[in-house]
């Protein structure tokens, strides 16, 4: 449900990615991937411009391949709803190094601000918990965001899920690069995998 004093998405994402060290970040289609670009480009950013519903599964694939690297998926409520089953898949695999953060403005911001299911009856934290992600929480203050940040770097205690209520303001578009081959090979290179 909409509330006053909702968080600013850019401030939240800047906090999550501050002093990130080797963390890989996957940005779901839409404003979330732009928020990652606004926080500063990084060779371990996986920017998505499509493949709606796939962000969590891409994060899982990376997390399983790189168990010593923290992986965070930052996505929106609409993108998460489209890949809702992936929460069950993640829970079954128990990747200790994977965190999923949903920036929930209860809106499809890219298409005109139509309300999503989270504006009505859907509770993503409840879904994540019921799928088996025990460490699932709702966040509504910057204090809680700051408390989440060190946990993102803990490789053993995941998977974790956080649903952060943000305001529905349309912020300035800061577009990340969109050449997928370059983006994915840059991540591979940073993890020590040479080009084919």
């Amino acid at each position, binding site marked *: 449900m909409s509330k006053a004093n909702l968080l600013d998405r850019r401030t939240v994402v800047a906090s999550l990615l501050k002093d990130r060290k080797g963390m890989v970040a996957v940005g779901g289609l839409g404003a979330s991937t732009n928020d990652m670009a606004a926080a500063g480009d990084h060779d371990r950013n996986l920017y998505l411009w499509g493949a709606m519903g796939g962000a969590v599964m891409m994060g899982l*694939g990376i997390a*399983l391949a790189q168990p010593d690297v923290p992986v965070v998926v930052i996505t929106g409520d609409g993108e998460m709803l489209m890949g809702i089953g992936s929460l069950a898949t993640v829970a079954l695999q128990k990747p200790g190094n994977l965190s999923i953060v949903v920036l929930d403005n209860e809106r499809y911001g890219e298409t005109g601000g139509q309300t999503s299911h989270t504006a009505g009856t859907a509770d993503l934290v409840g879904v994540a918990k019921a799928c088996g992600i025990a460490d699932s929480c709702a966040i509504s203050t910057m204090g809680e965001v700051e408390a989440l940040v060190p946990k993102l770097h803990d490789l053993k205690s995941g998977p974790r899920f956080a649903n952060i209520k943000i305001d529905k303001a349309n912020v300035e578009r800061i577009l990340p690069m969109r050449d997928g081959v370059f983006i*994915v090979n840059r991540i591979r290179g940073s993890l020590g995998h040479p080009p084919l």
Partner: protein
Amino acid sequence: MHARTDESEQQTAAWPGEIFAVLEKYDVRQVPYVPDAGHSKLLERVLGSKTMRGITLTTEEEGVALVAGAWAGGQRAALLMQSSGVGNCINMLSLVPLFRLPFFTIVTMRGEWGEFNHWQVPMGSTTQAVFEISGIKVLRANAASEVREVVEAGAAQAYNACTPTAVLLSQRLIGAKVFVK
């Protein structure tokens, strides 16, 4: 037609083990799948493997995204599914050209050889075309004797040449599911 019964020929056939050996040879580490009877013997091998991780999916499109993540993280993956699952993947298959993925999938076919359940026929009839129009090469194994060679060729071109490839295991090979005798 090879009708499948509880004591299916697949239980004693060598080809599921031959597919497993190819996946091992190509150092495949992540094996996402939606369970399918035709893949059951192979899945047992995967789930018992020390080097491969079998990853159960809720829908096949999750597997395409997982393959992309595995590649970004430096591991090879192979997606196992049934023909009906191919339709679930269509938008996510965009990732294959966009990331130039070494995409490899092995698909058990339904709806094409002595099928009882006609609900399998529409998707089974379009499986190959869906792959081809999505830019994925299709190879097919119709008989047990050719499975190893076809899967090996598919894996080689997918992983070595980044040529996304689907191997279809025909229903003639697997046997039609027996609903009534």
